[in-house]
Structures are given as structure tokens and as C-alpha cells.
């Protein structure tokens, strides 16, 4: 396998997660906590952070964080367009662009969500994308457009519905073994999964992600600088964001309707890194809804409509022995959901050997961003590079 010549690395991570509506501080306070956690993790002075990137319409404008952090100079602040989690991996691309071009030297990628400040996430995501065409059809929550696409995946493309159960079980298996997960100590009851109330067909309750209060922050610096910091660097070896022609905010007129929208992003990610799905040791697979997680795996080339049921099996998806352990902290279903930022933190922890569900010898981790969003993004991290 190729070893990478990566120019930037994650040097520190911080994650503060609470039950929905139970955050101890208002939103900015929780965010500052997570940023300081990430800096302490790296052994880095928070005042030296000079860049910030968010996604998903985060409300916390970086310039407003400066007094709390003691920021000496703000050199970069940006956000990936889009209301959903589609931009999460793209945020690392912004950070890498800032650092590689010399516009900033220490960049925090973050996402914050405290319900008393920003309201319910599902409502905020949909508010970004809603219009009267959707509303007139009763489509008011992200679950419904995703359900429409899932129905097409199952009924037209004949993907067996059982694969969603395999994926949800894997997330809960890892969550049950992660002391920081909302579902810690709680295995998924398959009967409960299969008979839970309908949300929007074909989704039942446990096909849908949670919502939590909290904030996550990841500190990125140059690969060279990362070597001198406290923790083992985790390098960003590739990242792509965007949409191919025929995909986007198209009033449900997308060409590959049942997909998760990653065709062009995945193609560019593999081309950029010279890697293939076989080179990926584990994946943090953003699952807003179960079927979209499956579509994301298909889009990234791990399987296809014909062999999806052979690949997406519980045993294949769990640490330590699965072919592709996914969502090793529990994912959005079982760890908790602060708009996916926990998955990026877990990618780093997994590659440092700090995961609650370690994948022995893992060198690469795919972060597949929010599926089905008009703008999507993915990134690959590794703990090995050319030095």
C-alpha cells in the first residue's frame, strides 16, 4: 500500500456530548470547552489557534470566540456550504487549504449544537433546504426525503431491507462498548428495532439518528509541527467535497436518486490518494438514516446493488475482526449525534489506538460525510506517512 505524503495532521481532539437539552452551558461555552480540550490533548496553547472551520450552518462565528480563547490573531474563518452534515469532511479540506497555503497555521474544525440556542437539529437542517415545493408535499423533516430515496433503493433497485438492520446492529454493538456513548451498555433489541413505530416508511424509529447537545473540535496543524506535539499525529491524506452534475438541491430531480450523492466525490478521493476501498481499514460512516449509510457504502465502492447483502453483514462491520469495522464509537445512531462531529473525533482516536473498540493495526480510516445532502464530502485519515 502507498505511504502518504500528507501535509497536515490532526494534533488534538475534544468532544463534549450531553443528552439533548441538558448541556451545562450555552452553546458558545460548550464550544470553547471542546476547543480547549482539543488544545490540551495536543499540548497546544489555545491562544495560538489562528483559524476555524465549521459546516452545517453552525451559529458560532469564530471572531466571537477570540476573547474566550485569548486568540492572538484570527487568520482564517470559513464554513462549508449546506445545512446538513454533507460538509463535515469538506471542513478538513478547508483547514488543509488554509495551512498548506500559509494563510493560517493552527486551525480548529468544529461543530456545536445546543438545543436551547439553535433549536432542534432536524428543523435547522431542513430550514436551510426547505421551500414551498417540498412543504406542499408535506416534506418538512430530513427523514422524509431520505425515506423517499430509501424506498427507491429497496423497491426499485431491490436492495434487501435486511441490510439496514446489519448496519444499525453494528453501530449499537460498538456504542454498547463505548463508555462515552449514549447507548453504552445497551445492546440493540432486534425485536424492538423491527417493530418500532414508523417515522416515515420505510424508516422506523431506530433507522433514524439521534440528536444530542454538545460540541466537537479537532486541531489541525502542519504535519511537521504535529510531530512536536503531545499526541501521535493523524494525517489527512485525502479529502473531496462537492456534487456531480445531476446531483444537488434539485427538488428530488437528482439523476442517481437512490444514491447518497458521493459518485463524483468518491471518484476524486480515490484518484487523489491512489487508494481503493480495499485499502481502508475502518470507516466512520455518517448515517443520518440507515438506508443512506448503505447508499454511502455503495457510492464509495465497497459494494454494489447486486452484492450489498454479502458485504453489509454484522460480522463484517464490527471491530476487531470485521472486513470493514464501521462507526467504532457507535456512530450517529448509538454514540450520539452532534451533527456528526463525533465521527471525525473517533476517526482520530481509532488511528491513535484510543478507541473503545480498537481495530488492531488500523492504518487508514475513511470519514464518509452526511449522505444524501446536496453537497457531500469524504476524507481519508492515516497514522502512517512518508517522513
Amino acid at each position, binding site marked *: 500500500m502507498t505511504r502518504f505524503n500528507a501535509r497536515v495532521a490532526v494534533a488534538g481532539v475534544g468532544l463534549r456530548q450531553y443528552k439533548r437539552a441538558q448541556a451545562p452551558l450555552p452553546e458558545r461555552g460548550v464550544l470553547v470547552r471542546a476547543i480547549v480540550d482539543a488544545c490540551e490533548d495536543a499540548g497546544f496553547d489555545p491562544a495560538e489557534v489562528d483559524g476555524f472551520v465549521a459546516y452545517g450552518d453552525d451559529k458560532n462565528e469564530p471572531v466571537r470566540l477570540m476573547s474566550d480563547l485569548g486568540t492572538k490573531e484570527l487568520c482564517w474563518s470559513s464554513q462549508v456550504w449546506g445545512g446538513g452534515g454533507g460538509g463535515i469532511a469538506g471542513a478538513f479540506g478547508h483547514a488543509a487549504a488554509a495551512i498548506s497555503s500559509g494563510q493560517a497555521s493552527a486551525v480548529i474544525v468544529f461543530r456545536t449544537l445546543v438545543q436551547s440556542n439553535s433549536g432542534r437539529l432536524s*428543523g435547522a437542517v431542513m430550514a436551510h433546504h426547505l*421551500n*414551498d*415545493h*417540498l*412543504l*406542499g*408535499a*408535506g*416534506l*418538512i*423533516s430530513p*427523514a*422524509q426525503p431520505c*425515506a*423517499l*430515496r430509501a*424506498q*427507491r433503493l429497496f*423497491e*426499485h433497485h431491490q436492495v434487501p431491507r435486511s441490510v439496514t438492520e446489519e448496519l444499525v446492529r453494528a453501530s449499537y454493538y460498538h456504542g454498547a462498548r463505548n463508555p462515552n456513548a449514549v447507548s453504552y451498555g445497551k445492546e440493540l433489541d432486534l425485536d424492538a428495532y423491527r417493530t418500532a*413505530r*414508523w*417515522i*416515515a*416508511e*420505510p424508516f422506523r424509529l431506530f433507522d433514524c439518528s439521534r440528536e444530542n447537545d454538545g460540541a466537537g473540535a479537532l486541531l489541525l496543524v502542519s504535519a511537521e509541527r504535529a510531530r512536536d506535539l503531545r499526541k501521535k499525529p493523524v494525517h489527512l491524506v485525502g479529502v473531496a467535497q462537492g456534487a456531480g452534475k445531476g446531483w444537488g*438541491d*434539485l*427538488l*428530488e*430531480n437528482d439523476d442517481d*436518486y437512490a444514491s447518497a450523492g458521493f459518485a463524483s466525490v468518491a471518484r476524486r478521493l480515490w484518484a487523489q490518494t491512489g487508494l481503493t476501498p480495499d485499502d481502508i481499514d475502518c470507516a466512520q460512516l455518517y448515517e443520518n438514516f440507515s438506508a443512506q449509510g448503505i447508499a454511502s457504502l455503495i457510492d464509495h465502492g465497497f459494494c454494489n446493488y447486486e452484492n450489498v447483502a454479502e458485504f453489509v453483514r454484522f460480522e463484517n462491520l464490527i471491530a476487531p475482526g470485521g472486513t470493514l469495522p464501521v462507526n467504532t464509537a457507535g456512530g450517529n445512531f448509538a454514540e450520539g449525534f452532534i451533527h456528526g462531529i463525533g465521527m471525525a473525533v473517533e476517526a482520530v482516536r481509532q488511528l491513535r489506538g484510543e478507541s473503545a473498540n480498537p481495530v488492531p493495526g488500523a492504518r487508514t480510516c475513511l470519514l464518509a460525510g452526511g449522505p444524501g445532502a446536496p453537497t457531500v464530502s469524504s476524507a481519508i485519515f492515516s497514522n502512517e506517512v512518508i517522513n
Partner: protein
Amino acid sequence: MSEPMLAVRHTTGADGPYWRALAAGRVELPRCAGCGRWHWPAVFRCGECGSWDQQWHAVEPEGTVFSWTRTWHAFDGSEKIGLPFVSLVVELPQCGGRRLLGLLEGEAGGLRIGAAVRARVAETEIWGERIPALRWTLSGASS
């Protein structure tokens, strides 16, 4: 003929003519005068041929179900629709396969992808606002 004009909230986008037609009880969709492509969502300029001439044509609201979902959860704002309700994505072969949205009314027994449907213009109430919208009926079903 004597159908009242429905209230329309947004007529200033590229899709303004769609809403004005819908409020008058008609369905109109845009087609590029330069290359003949049906565009939906509406565009100001055809990205395929570069033409700025987008012409609106009356369209029979008939097509086939491209996908569907039946909503059971009481999402905020949708209270007036009544649970459960079925939302459709409908493909219009007469418009180059462009797709329109809407709620299903009447019998749902034959609901499947590919089923033939036909629409009338009605209103959907969301968060207290009434929005002109299509109501689809499965062909052969009684509304």
C-alpha cells in the same frame, strides 16, 4: 372557471411562473427554447445551450410514481395534513422525465413505484400557511 386565486408566497425566483400558474389552478413547466430541454427546478439560463429563453408550457399533471413515503410521525408544522399521509415523487414522461412532488389522496391500495397517477391543484397547510400544491390520485382509484 370560477376557481379562486390561491395565495402564493414566492413568485420572485426562476420558478415564479410555476407558482402563478398553480395559484390559477394550472400546472406549467419551463422548456428551453434553445435546445428543447425541460428544466426542473426552473433556471434563468440553460446551462446546456446557454439560452436565456425559457418558455413556460401548460402541462397535464399526469405521470408515474417515482418514489413514495408514508409519514406517521407528527413533525412540527404538518399537523393540519392529518396522519398518516403519503408524499409522492412523480415522473412526468411528457416533460422529459422531470419530477414533481405532492400528497396522495384517495385510495392507496395500488401504491407502488411505476403506478399511474393524476393530480389536481389544492392547498397544503404548513405552520399555518396555505401553500398551493398538487394532490395526486392513483389512476383507477376513487378520490
